[in-house]
């Protein structure tokens, strides 16, 4: 266990990066996923089709492929740069693009299933008092839809937390990459280090699950 104790600053630093990746990608995915869900239930066939194609392509592509595309395709070949003098900032945002683009597809489907829980009469009533589509969505449908899917959104956040380890594929120094490096430096302490990192993820994800379970009960729409 002493390797874990000795390297605690490195491990905490790595998990801090994991947290940052999760929170920022999570927020972008939530916003973008909501827009996609709105597109998928919109009255315009073009928007519905575009969102459906996006969701099906991103949802069915392995995340590793998406992240490596962001790193090599966007970053290296197309020369998309977020910072000319800081490689870690650059890799961080490239992987954030990949993580949020991927997670947004799932957020979209979760929210859309939430929309289906809202009784049809709600939308009809909203239209009959003269609300536009966007007003109906914003004021009537989404508030009820999102409250119905708090728990699955929590599951997505947990999945995202663990998915951030894929960012190691393009050199983001989060938990998985640091663990690999520590294995090399402490060849005799592979199992304690592994258990230490596993525990780190449990510490991050367990409270998220509990929080979202509690939120979903508290915010549930009583019908």
């Amino acid at each position, binding site marked *: 266990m002493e390797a874990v104790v000795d390297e605690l600053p490195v491990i905490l630093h790595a998990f801090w990066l994991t947290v940052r990746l999760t929170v920022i990608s999570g927020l972008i995915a939530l916003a973008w996923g909501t827009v996609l869900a709105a597109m998928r239930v919109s009255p315009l066939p073009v928007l519905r089709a575009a969102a459906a194609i996006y969701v099906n392509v991103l949802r069915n592509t392995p995340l590793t492929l998406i992240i490596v595309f962001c790193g*090599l395709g966007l*970053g*290296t*070949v197309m*020369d998309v740069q977020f910072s000319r*003098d*800081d*490689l*870690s900032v650059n*890799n961080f945002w490239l992987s954030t693009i990949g993580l949020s683009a991927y997670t947004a597809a799932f957020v979209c489907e979760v929210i859309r299933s939430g929309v289906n829980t809202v009784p049809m009469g709600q939308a009809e009533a909203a239209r009959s008092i003269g609300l536009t589509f966007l007003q109906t969505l914003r004021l009537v449908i989404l508030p009820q839809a999102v409250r119905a899917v708090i728990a699955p959104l929590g599951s997505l956040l947990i999945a995202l937390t663990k998915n951030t380890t894929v960012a*190691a*594929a*393009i*050199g983001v*120094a989060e938990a998985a*990459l640091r663990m*690999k*490096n520590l*294995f*090399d*430096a402490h*060849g*005799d302490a*592979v*199992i304690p280090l592994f*258990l230490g990192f596993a525990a780190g993820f449990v510490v991050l994800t367990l409270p998220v699950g509990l929080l979202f379970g509690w939120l979903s009960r508290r915010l549930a729409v009583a019908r």
Partner: protein
Amino acid sequence: MRFGTCMLVLAAMATSLTACANSGASSIVDKAKDDKKLTIGIKIDQPGWGLKKPDGTYEGMDVDVARYIAKELGVPESGITFKEAQSANREPFIQQGQVDMVLATYSITDERKKKISFAGPYLVTGQDILVRADDTSITGEDSLKDKKVCGAQGSSSPKRLADKFGPDWESKNLTQQQGYGACLPLLQNKQVDAISTDATILAGFAKQLPGQFKLVGQPFSTEKYGVGLKMDDKAGRDAINNALDKMFKDGTWRKIVDANLGEFGKFFATPPPLERY
């Protein structure tokens, strides 16, 4: 209750893994003589050193040296089983007896000598720098201070630079990819200015794309590649050292170096002195 059981299982797994660490004390020499078979740990993704080809055969300097040693110990080529040994599991593989010896760009260090023993070295190299062929601004370790550098995850070479230049440099100037092969496109596309690790490994990769890269040739560390063996196998160490000595003298060493490292073979002029103990 269920959580308790879970922890017990984990603890049992951990102890069983360490428990089998010290089994089997017989020498590799006896095993080679009796069974005519050896299991050898190599890298399978290191061009020039240990590379598994699409047809399932292996090539590289470590592979050739391993075959030579096996032959000297009386094992025909058909009796060799190559097994992938990644950097992190080389010591456990030897200790647990999963392989009889390891030739996997394996640096002899005092730290490792506490757990296993080494024959050799059969090559001495050092951490060097690979740059684009037209780059003249990088002349040695110190010129990396304001350059972007690529290294591999789980390798000690980037760590050496990070320790020297500090965490701020590490964050801004160092990217750690999954293996040195993944660094090459970054260097080609000018995302980074240099790749730094053992000259031997750089040479293996650079040889695949002739003319595009050059080695700076100013090594700033000493790495001695040895053959990893069980801690207490002195007879095996002596036999392998004798085989290496013969390989150095009969010209096979030169041939193997030139065949596997091509134009970069010139950086390795003479065989290193053996360190018998």
